[in-house]
């Protein structure tokens, strides 16, 4: 559905997007993840046909965004970061306007349907200037979906709205995956992890990692961490843990210990064995997941 090849965009001498390539298949929800200024918005603006790239190509549903721009633009629903509205229009009038402009066969009925979907039907005839921020965000989503495009591009869809509404928007995005290809950008990692089928981490204009959230975690997590709480005896726990082969580091944390294990090693059986023999009992032992958050900071840090 979306295919990006060697995309490059320069603002003056500053390279905003540097040789990015990725694909998104039908019904896939892909997250562009990166800090502010990483090139997420620029990539999206190229895909929506707002600005031309300096190099490379991008196609939406088979249409090149440069050579066949009008066709490609018709395949996309786009929600920019700051929801653009006409404050003096009614909710329904606004959505119907975009439906019509994008060539929807039945703009008024489709506007009604999409308003139902984003739960704004009761505000149908309200002037947009009187809507709350969360409602505007949903209105922006309605605008992007009204012509039922195969590809939906959402730039930071959950920014600046309250937590309850964040959950609603995320649910809505997840549902979109059933019949749309979704590309969304975010700098919130847990969001990408919850919502996306695939995550592309970009920093300073190029892709630093991509894959399924679980895959990324496996690939980037260098060693296993265990959290162990020993009972029975008071002292000597740390020494015991250090004596197990494969353990790289042990540090006390709360009631127990954080144990870092060499990549590929599995110390669990040995640990239980040794501990019991030494007269300890094991009250807790669990693997500690490196959160995407840490991974992300780690990657970005390595870049810098």
């Amino acid at each position, binding site marked *: 559905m979306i295919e990006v090849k060697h995309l490059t965009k320069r603002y003056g001498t500053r390279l905003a997007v540097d040789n990015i390539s990725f694909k998104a298949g039908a019904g896939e929800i892909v997250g562009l993840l990166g800090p502010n200024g990483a090139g997420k918005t620029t990539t999206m603006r190229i895909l929506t*046909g*707002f600005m031309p790239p300096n190099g490379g190509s991008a196609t939406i549903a088979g249409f090149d965004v440069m050579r066949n721009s009008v066709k490609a*633009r018709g395949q996309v629903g786009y929600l*920019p970061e700051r929801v*653009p509205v*006409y404050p003096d229009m009614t909710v329904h009038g606004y959505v119907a306007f*975009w439906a019509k*402009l994008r060539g929807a066969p039945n703009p008024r009925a489709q506007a009604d349907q999409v308003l139902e979907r984003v739960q704004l039907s009761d505000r149908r005839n309200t002037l947009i200037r009187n809507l709350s921020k969360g409602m505007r965000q949903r209105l922006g989503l309605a605008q992007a979906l009204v012509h039922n495009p195969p590809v939906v591009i959402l730039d930071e869809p959950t920014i600046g709205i309250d937590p309850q509404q964040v959950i609603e928007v995320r649910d809505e995005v997840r549902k979109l995956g059933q019949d749309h290809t979704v590309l969304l950008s975010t700098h919130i990692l847990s969001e990408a992890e919850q919502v996306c089928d695939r995550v592309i981490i970009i920093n300073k204009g190029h892709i630093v990692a991509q894959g399924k959230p679980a895959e990324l975690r496996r690939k980037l997590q260098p060693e296993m961490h265990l959290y162990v709480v020993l009972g029975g005896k008071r002292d000597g726990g740390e020494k015991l843990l250090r004596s197990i082969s494969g353990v790289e580091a042990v540090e006390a944390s709360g009631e127990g210990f954080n144990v870092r294990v060499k990549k590929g090693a599995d110390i669990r059986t040995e640990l239980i064995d040794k501990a019991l023999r030494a007269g300890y009992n094991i009250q807790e032992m669990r693997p500690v997941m490196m959160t995407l958050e840490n991974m992300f900071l780690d990657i970005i840090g390595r870049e810098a």
Partner: protein
Amino acid sequence: MPGVFTVFQREIGSYFTSLYAYLIAFAILIITGILFITDLDNAAGQRPPDPSVIPTFLSFAMIFFAPLLTMRLLAEEKREGTLELLLTSPASDTGIVVGKFLGSWAYFTLILAITFIYQIILIGIAQPDLVHAISAYLGIWLYGGACLAVGMVFSAITENQIVAAFLASAILFLLWIGDRVGQVVTNIDFARVLRELTLQGHFSTSFAYGLLHAEDVVYFAGIIVVMLFITIRLVESNRWR
């Protein structure tokens, strides 16, 4: 030009839902109403009423009213961010600009049509020269279109509506006053060239007298086309920044 009709419709709608468009119409109608009565009063028993009194007034007033009608067109879209959505819709840049221009021109046409009621009132009480009136109205209709097109260029230049209106007014004033300058310049050829370039030069001695010259129609149509072309390029330039 895909999108032209949809944009036109929205633009017309937005004039009818904004207070300031009503205020402009109100101002134009009340001033022209007073002018009409004053002229009728002066003419009574002495001369036929002047059919071009209102178009002649508007030829000056459009310096201020045209920018007020057009300042919003693109400046607001840019500030609110809706321009980004317009430019990523399947509508062409030309369609967007032409649609907006036609919207503002249609609103101006409506105000103008309301003032034509004065001519119809005259039919009941005098024997007005209707052909003269129609020529003057046709002239001010084209003249107004040209002023709106100039105003639109400045709306595309800036995000600030007040700056847009001010700059457009200044340029229109120059185009208007050029005719006066032509009257005091000693070199007759230079004066003639100046006059040919100004808005008044193609209105005050032709349309306003009931004369319809092809060159005047071409002049106003030419201004509209050139200004729209510049506006389209300016809108397009948003893609390259």
